[in-house]
């Protein structure tokens, strides 16, 4: 029997490779399909890019990135980016890119904080045993997640500039903050000499409180004696900077807006475009975060809570040590994904003219220069980097939160 098999193998080896063998050989097939795909894709790219260069040349569109050095020649809605970059129409196209990038990051940053707060609130309210509160939270989610985000942005923006009062009749909050159709007027902080020392004190406070926490945690693990660290944290993070601030003689002044003849003067103006965009993005994204948090809390087995009670943990301890760590493991990954979505959705500012990346750079500069390929490639690259950063963060969090198998 064995001989027979060996013989047949030997025979087939003697025959060598013929076409039929190749056709039914898995590796040969795999190789063939991959080569075909490769040739197709590369060929497609080759033709497309060849056509692109041909068409660009025919139309007399410039190529390359020299346009970045050219004068931009248009004004950008004054906002944080402008203040940081000192933007004027004489600045280069590259500063437009830079201003846009800063404005995108500002919207994303504030939107992420706001949406997390609203989302936490709504997500917990949804699970409240208070019927009215739970229903209201549910209604909020059903209402805002089923309206396209662009519609919400346009709606709030329109409401802002058409319904809110003229500067003369601004809503005033203690004569420090004003809200009218031109936006929100906040006191503008003007740091004086020595303010950096206060910032430094805050940093020192943060580091000190971290080490204090670490020290007492180690003590707790070694001896079982628990020490509350929050008084130390408050003393270091809030107390220390305040003391330094007072010792140095309050090195921070505020420029408060004053009602002029037609408009409010001075202070820091937060433009309505920013307010509408951030508000709409936060409200919309919060519905998804709320759902993530709700499903996280619901994912924790009821037995966990009962077990915690059985070993004598107080409700606070059980929430802090048992429920939340497990709930967050489920809730955090989708929440981080929503942060990415929020950042991507901030590009819808194009519709209302808030000067973020896609509006100022991908819109205005593109219309002026006409080099769509380079400009869109740069804009896409920025979003790629942001999303790459967020997926690295996500992987890190997932790894950190993964259940430790034994």
């Amino acid at each position, binding site marked *: 029997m064995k001989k027979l098999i060996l013989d047949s193998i030997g025979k087939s080896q003697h025959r060598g490779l013929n076409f039929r063998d190749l056709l039914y050989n898995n590796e040969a097939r795999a190789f063939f399909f991959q080569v075909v795909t490769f040739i197709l894709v590369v060929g497609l790219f080759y033709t497309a890019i060849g056509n*692109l260069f041909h*068409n660009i040349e025919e139309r007399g569109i410039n190529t390359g990135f020299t346009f970045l050095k050219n004068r931009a020649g248009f004004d950008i809605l004054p906002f944080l980016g402008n203040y940081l970059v000192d933007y004027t129409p004489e600045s280069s196209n590259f500063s437009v890119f830079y201003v846009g990038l800063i404005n995108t990051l500002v919207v994303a940053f504030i939107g992420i904080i706001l949406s997390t707060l609203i989302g936490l609130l709504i997500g917990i309210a949804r699970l409240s045993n208070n*019927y*009215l509160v739970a229903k209201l939270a549910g209604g909020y989610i059903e209402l805002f997640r089923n309206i396209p985000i662009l519609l919400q942005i346009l709606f709030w923006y329109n409401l802002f500039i058409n319904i809110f009062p003229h500067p003369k009749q601004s809503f005033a909050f203690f004569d420090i903050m004003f809200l009218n159709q031109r936006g929100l007027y906040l006191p503008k902080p003007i740091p004086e000499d020595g303010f950096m020392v206060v910032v430094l004190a805050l940093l020192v406070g943060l580091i000190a409180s971290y080490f204090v926490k670490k020290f007492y945690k180690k003590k707790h693990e070694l001896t079982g004696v628990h020490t509350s660290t929050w008084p130390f944290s408050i003393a270091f993070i809030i107390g220390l900077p305040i003391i330094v601030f007072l010792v140095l003689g309050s090195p921070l002044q505020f420029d408060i807006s004053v009602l002029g003849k037609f408009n409010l003067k001075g202070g820091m103006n937060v433009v309505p475009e920013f307010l509408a965009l951030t508000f709409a993005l936060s409200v919309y994204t919060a519905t998804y975060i709320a759902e993530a948090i709700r499903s996280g809390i619901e994912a924790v087995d009821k037995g966990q809570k009962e077990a915690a009670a059985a070993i004598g943990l107080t409700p606070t301890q059980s929430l802090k040590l048992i429920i939340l760590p497990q709930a967050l493991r489920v809730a955090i990954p989708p929440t981080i994904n929503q942060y990415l979505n929020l950042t991507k959705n901030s*590009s819808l500012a194009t519709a209302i003219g808030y000067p973020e990346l896609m509006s100022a750079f991908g819109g205005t500069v*593109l219309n002026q220069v006409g080099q769509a390929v380079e400009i*869109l490639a740069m*804009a896409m690259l920025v*979003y790629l980097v942001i999303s790459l950063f967020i997926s690295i963060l996500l992987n890190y969090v997932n790894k950190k939160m993964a259940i430790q198998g034994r």
Partner: protein
Amino acid sequence: MPVFDQQETRKPPISQIGAVLWLKTNLFSSWINSVLTLASLYLLYILIPPLLNWMVFDASFSFGTVNFFGFEIKFSEEMATNDNCGRVGACWPYIYEKLYMYTYGFYPRTETWRPNIVFGLTALLFVIVPLVKNYKYKNRVTLSLIILYPLISYVLIAGGFGILTPVDTDQWGGLLLTLIIASVGIIVSFPIGVLLALGRQSNLKVIKLFSTLFIEFIRAVPLITILFMASFVLPLFLESGNYFDKLLRALIGIALFQAAYFAEVVRGGLQAIPRGQYEAADAIGLSYLQKNVLIILPQALKISIPNIVGSSISLFKDTTLVLIIGLFDMLAMVNLTSNDPYWLGREPEGFVFVTMVMWAILYTMSRYSRKLELRFNTENKN
């Protein structure tokens, strides 16, 4: 002689029955809950009455005489104008006047029957497919409908072919355009998405690499950049370099974008199929095509149906973005119609109207998706 005197059973205290008990357990179980309840009531009080006043009580409903399927309904002597509508409440006659624009855009008024038939066909489709569920040839019927329906719709809406007056895509607009973009987007991107998902799960390194790169790239950038790419750069990739139809360009962009998202959804389904299914298919000697079409995909797609609907909901929301590249979908009509000198400054009414329509469609879709999810979720069934 002591006689047992039966007393009437005492009723439970008022706090333990009916509405009072419900109120106590659900709204006033603790002082924190009482405060929350009162705060919620106050919130409703400051939100609901002004909204109702604006939408109903202070609003104008002077539509004049309305012809509703042949019935003459008289709302008022004559239709309100922008001026006598007032600014305190909503001016619904504006919506009535512009309803045509919101529904069909600039579609020629004499040809309205054509989109109407398509709307009717769409509704019919939703009736027919569940009806033939138990019919022997249901797959053939469904498949032919899937092929026939877009063809008939296209011929009806676009016209041409020597039968109907051609209507240019520039004239399509409003809800019609929104529905066209959404349905074309879903129908075209779905097969691409399935192929990409299979590609990403494939053992062939090159195919896997290209699929993964495409999916991850598209998912990392916002739709608006893809739409800009499709509308400014895509024509330059073609040999002629002509800027062809604007709607077609947008559709290509949207379909590619959506395909990447569908691919991830389907991949989720593919990964949920136990290895044994793949191995069993291999063991009985099925080819790659047979294995996927007969064994893997039917199961994987079934699992991913709720997520497919969810992804379609996102696509429907994303159709509004086409207004940025200059197509007049329903949302774009708000600014367009309230720039009409006769109806200046009626954006709030427009936004509220579009919100109501969009919300109704999206809410129905999301309820449907949740229903499917419950139906397919056999995991926790006892």
